[in-house]
Structures are given as C-alpha cells and as structure tokens.
C-alpha cells in the first residue's frame, strides 16, 4: 500500500519513546511522500504528537531511525529541523505570550533594516515585519482588531492562526501541523485547509494531525493511522469509508496491510 518508487521525503523506522513507564511511541514507522498531504489520525494519547515531535527535533527518541530524503538524520533541536526547511505548528501553540504578532511571526528570523542601521546597529525593521505579518495574517483571513497587541490577549483561535501563518510562510521542505484547526472557527479552518492546498501546490508535502474526519477526508492524499504508539496502517481516503477508518483507529477493525482490506479486530 505504502509502496511507491519514489524516495520518501521524511521517514521513520521503529521509533520508541518512553516517559517513565508510559510508552508514547512503541516502534512507530512513518513515511511522507513528496508533494503529498499526509494526515495522521488516532485516538487521544495514540502518540501522534510524540511522533511528530520526534520527527522535528523537539524530542529525542529512545531508539529508532529517521531519514530525510533517504539519508539518516538526527535533529538536535527544532532549529536544526528548521534549518532543513521543516516548519512545525506544535499542538501546544509555540507563541511567545507577551510579544506581538509580528514579533512572533518573525521570531528567530527577524529582519533588520537595510544598510548600516541593520548591519552595524542591528536595528530591526519593525515596519517591514509588521507589514509582512499583516499580509500573511490577511491571507488566513483571521479577523484581528490589532496587530500590535501581545498574542496573550488574542482569542485561542486567533493565536492558533498566528502559529499556522508563521509555519506556512517559512516552510521550504516540509510543513507539519499538529491539530492546526482545533481552535479555529469554520471560516478560519477553511482558510487553513486552503493554505494547506496552496502549500501542496508549491510542491511541499504536509503532515496534518487532525481529529476532524471530514477535513481529513477532504484534503489528505494518504492517511496514517496511529494506535497505541504504532502505525497500524496507511490508507487512501478514496479506498475506505470514513466509518471504516474510524473503526481501524479505535481498534474495532484491523487493516491487513497486504491487501488493504479490513478484518474484525480485537478491541
């Protein structure tokens, strides 16, 4: 099923991560193909966030292997992954509460003024950063009454929007989004899905974690199903019913990876 003649952009083999006696990843495999939108679904606690954290340098797996474009890599930290063009929206909203939207959009990649002011005096180009942020936020159509207020005073959805806009704006290789629409309104969610499509059009693959099955079926090229810390299957939305996929996810059905057909599972 997952076989393709192309080299996966991002791959993981048998990742294991334990917290005390809780095993978050229990030998998880993972493949992301070029240009695809790969949805990762699974129950709460299935290890989806742990998986993508391991893939993006935010946590170090206890064992297992990660390959980028077929080459083994070990991301020391999120910055390292970022330097490889991988941008991530983490589930726990990586925004700095007391900074404003523009500062958050450009955090770690600030733009300095041209000329001496920037080179020698390292003066930030606030105006440009604010304008570009406004543009990116407008693309997402998140209604914001002020761009200069600290993000801590934004609504949960607005804050989420900032993180999504940032990832999309900067990605050069892979975009990873951990439940990006969880806090978003209908309109804003639609915008995020549009954005994901546009990212795909740019040729970049996207990893999307979501509990929203209609969204997943609407946008995903393939669906990675995570259960109890493992990948229990990868399917194409067209080949399966939504109800069937949910059943696999919860363990009610089992997927035979050879044939792609499902058999009754042990719950």
């Amino acid at each position, binding site marked *: 099923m997952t076989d393709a003649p192309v080299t996966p952009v991002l791959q993981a083999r048998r990742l294991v991560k334990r917290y005390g006696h809780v095993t978050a990843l229990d030998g998880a495999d993972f493949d992301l193909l070029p240009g695809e939108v790969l949805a990762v679904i699974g129950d709460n606690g299935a290890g989806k966030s742990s998986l993508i954290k391991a893939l993006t340098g935010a946590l170090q797996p206890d064992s297992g292997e990660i390959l980028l474009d077929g080459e083994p890599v070990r991301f020391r930290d999120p910055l390292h992954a970022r330097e490889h063009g991988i941008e991530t929206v983490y589930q726990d909203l990586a925004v700095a509460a*007391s900074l404003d939207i523009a500062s958050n959009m450009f955090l770690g990649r600030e733009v300095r003024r041209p000329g001496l002011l920037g080179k020698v005096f390292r003066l*930030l180009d606030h105006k440009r950063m604010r304008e570009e942020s406004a543009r990116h936020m407008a693309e997402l159509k998140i209604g914001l009454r002020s761009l200069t207020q600290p993000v801590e005073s934004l609504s949960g959805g607005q804050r989420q929007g900032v993180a999504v806009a940032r990832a999309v704006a900067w990605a050069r290789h892979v975009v990873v989004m951990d439940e990006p629409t969880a806090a978003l309104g209908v309109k804003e969610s639609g915008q995020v899905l549009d954005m994901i499509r546009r990212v795909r059009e740019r040729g970049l693959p996207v990893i999307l974690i979501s509990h929203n099955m209609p969204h997943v079926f609407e946008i995903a090229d393939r669906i990675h199903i995570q259960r109890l810390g493992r990948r229990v299957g990868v399917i194409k939305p067209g080949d399966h019913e939504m109800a069937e996929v949910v059943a696999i996810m919860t363990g009610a059905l089992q997927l035979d990876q050879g044939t792609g057909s499902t058999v009754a599972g042990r719950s």
Partner: protein
Amino acid sequence: MTSALSTPPAPARTGAPSAARRLLTTPTMGPLVALLLACAFFSLNTDQFLTGGNFSLVIQQVMVVGTLAIGQTLIILTAGIDLANGAIMAFGGIVMAKLAADGAVPPLLAIALGILVCAAFGALNGLLVTSIPLPPFIVTLGMLNVVFALTHIYSADQTVANLPAPLTALGETFAIGGTLVTYGSLLTILLFLLFAYLLGQTAWGRHVYALGNSSEVARLTGIRTRRLTVGVYTTAGLVYGIAALLLVSRTGVGDPQAGQTDNLDSITAVVLGGTSLFGGRGLVLGTLLGALIVGVFRNGLQLMGVSSIYQTLITGVLVILAVTVDQLSRRRIR
C-alpha cells in the same frame, strides 16, 4: 488593523499617531508617577531637594546599584534571578584595584581584566543554569558565597587605596548648566539607553523576551535557548564589571566589603520598575526609574532629618506604595 495597543516589549514607533496613548499604556508609567510624586513631596518638604546638585548626587548614589540592576533586568527577563551580582562586582573591583595599585599591570589593562573576571563569573552562572538545568536562584546563591569568599581570600581583607587616575576617572565631574555631573553618572545613563535599544530594537531583545515567556516555546520556535541564556548571564556579568569600575571610581578604593546588600537592592529596582519576576515582561528604563525611586526616598528622607530607623520604616511603606501606584495605573489602562 495595525492600531496601537502597545505591548510591553513593543518597540517605539516613531511618528505613530497614537503616541499619547502609547505613553499612557507603557508599563513604566506607574514607576514614573511614583517617582514624580516622591519628588513633589520632598520638594515641598525640604529646601535642599529641588536643586541640580542634589539630583546629580542622587544619580551618583544610585549609579552602582542601577548598573547592577541593568544586568539583573536582563536575567529577570529570562525568568531567572541573580543573587550574586553584588558579590561579583566586589570581586571585579578588588581585582582591578589590586592589579593597578601594585603597579604590576597598566591601569587600563587592570580595568579590562576586572571586567573580564566579572563576565567570566556571569558566564559560569549561565553555564550552570543551563547545564542540568539548575534553578538560577540556587546557582547564584551558591555563587554568592563562593565569590564572596574569593574576594576576601584574594584581597586578604585589605582595602586597596592610592589607585592610579584611570580607575577613578569616572568619578571626575563636568558641568551641565552649573551643575556638576560625574562621568560615571553619564556612563550609567548611556548604559541604560544602550540596553533599552538592545532589548527593544534588536532580534536579541525579542529572543530574551521570548525566552522569558516560556523557554519551551522559545526552543520550539528555533531559538538556541542555551546559548542565549549563557549569553544573557555573560552580558550581565560584563555589566557588573562596569559597575565595579563605577564603584571603584566613586569610592576611590577597592573595597572587599562592597556590594553585600546590592543583590536585593538591584532586584528591588527591577521590580519597582515594573518588570515581572516571572520573566518576559518589563523594560530596562523602568529599572532606572525603580533605582531612582529608592535613591530619592533615601536622599529626601535624609534631607528632612528623619532618623535612620524611621527612614527604614518609611522606605518600607513607600516601596509598597510605589508598587501599588504602578499596579493601579496598569489596571486603569487595561
């Protein structure tokens, strides 16, 4: 869409239409009001308060603690705290005084070495804080004892006098409209402006605030939090080294007993200036105001002839009042 509810660390927008609103909502408003109230009170109650000479004096008196408080602000903005800053300064002061007084080393080199030693202790604090990691409170508490002991061992408890001119140059004065101001006071003000610039107008400043908001968020955003933290502590150490030079030039000696209460005093200045002890929120110019508040109280009460134990009593009450004014002024704006 780009209206102007200002954020604590937001940069000044020159020429923005909402300058008045921006001023009102800045978190330094509270300390400023407190300071002005105190000045008004003392001006009404003593003749000697409202003179250029007296203001120059107050600045001289707060410049050492004020400079230490710049470093303290940096560290507190990262959600850390530094209990060792006074001790580090005292050590730096002794190092430069001893090296220069023995004549073994040219004065300017002695100064440089003294400042370097302070920066090195700052770096050590930063490395320890980020290593395991360890809590800054306890690292700097331990370091306080270590550096204190080193100061006394190295100096053999001797005050070092007869220092060559470069070490006391910052104590010299120049006149501004008839009022004598020391070069040290000027340097202190310049340092405050420099760090206001660095924190408000450079990427480094943004990162410091982000780190203080949440080091996990900063890490996930791709900031090298370890390197940044060590950098902040090292920079603070460097600033303590400058404070050491200011101290030496002010007192004219290298004094192993110096700085013993300056850790809490510098924290007081930072907090009075409206910076949050939980990190990520505050302005270094607020710290300047905080330091001045303490200095003005002490000076004014002294001028009014209040006996020292009552000065302590009143200072305690006023510290609480000042921060009350600060909090109330913020609430009104919210």
